[in-house]
């Protein structure tokens, strides 16, 4: 059974802080994704990675960066958090273009 875990369920940060969200999957999937989930807007892709050290921008990459140093781990970084980045962040992984397996989500509040 695929397990995707995220480092925190809830996070509260202040404007301007650097924020790290981590995601780990245990099924040797090549592809990993970061999404924002906002009411009325659905899931929007921030970044995805198809291999170690490889990344591609999604639809809303501004204000975010990512890091994938190991196959099982994909980190989302908010260089300088802003209030409009308050959201639910979902990580997912897939093998090829197969079913996406999601983590439980991190609800980030930026004050």
């Amino acid at each position: 059974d695929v397990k995707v875990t995220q480092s925190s369920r809830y996070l509260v940060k202040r404007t301007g802080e650097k924020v790290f969200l981590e995601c780990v999957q245990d099924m040797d999937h090549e592809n990993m994704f970061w999404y924002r989930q906002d009411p009325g807007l659905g899931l929007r892709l921030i970044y995805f990675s198809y291999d170690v050290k490889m990344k591609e921008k999604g639809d809303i990459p501004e204000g975010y960066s990512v890091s994938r140093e190991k196959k099982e781990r994909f980190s989302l970084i908010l260089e300088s958090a802003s209030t409009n980045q308050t959201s639910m962040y979902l990580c997912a992984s897939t093998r090829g273009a197969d079913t996406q397996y999601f983590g439980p989500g991190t609800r980030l509040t930026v004050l």
Partner: protein
Amino acid sequence: AQRVTQPEKLLSVFKGAPVELKCNYSYSGSPELFWYVQYSRQRLQLLLRHISRESIKGFTADLNKGETSFHLKKPFAQEEDSAMYYCALNPLGTYKYIFGTGTRLKVLA
């Protein structure tokens, strides 16, 4: 542009009534389409995908290329079907899944 449209934000039905959650897509090639579901306090998970042609928890979805639709249907709704449902498109040859804005289904007793 590639797009997935779920026109209803909220759909309320009574227990035992039929359910249809609408999904329309915009894509010029052969699409790979999915329905994902998120129950309260649970993670988002796959409900079904069109290539498997399965019925999961009584739900079915048929791809209609002429109408570019992939509506999710169930003949008799149950209270445990109450959840958020997302339709998703995976354009062939890419990993950039495109999700709709979601429909919240409420099944009333």
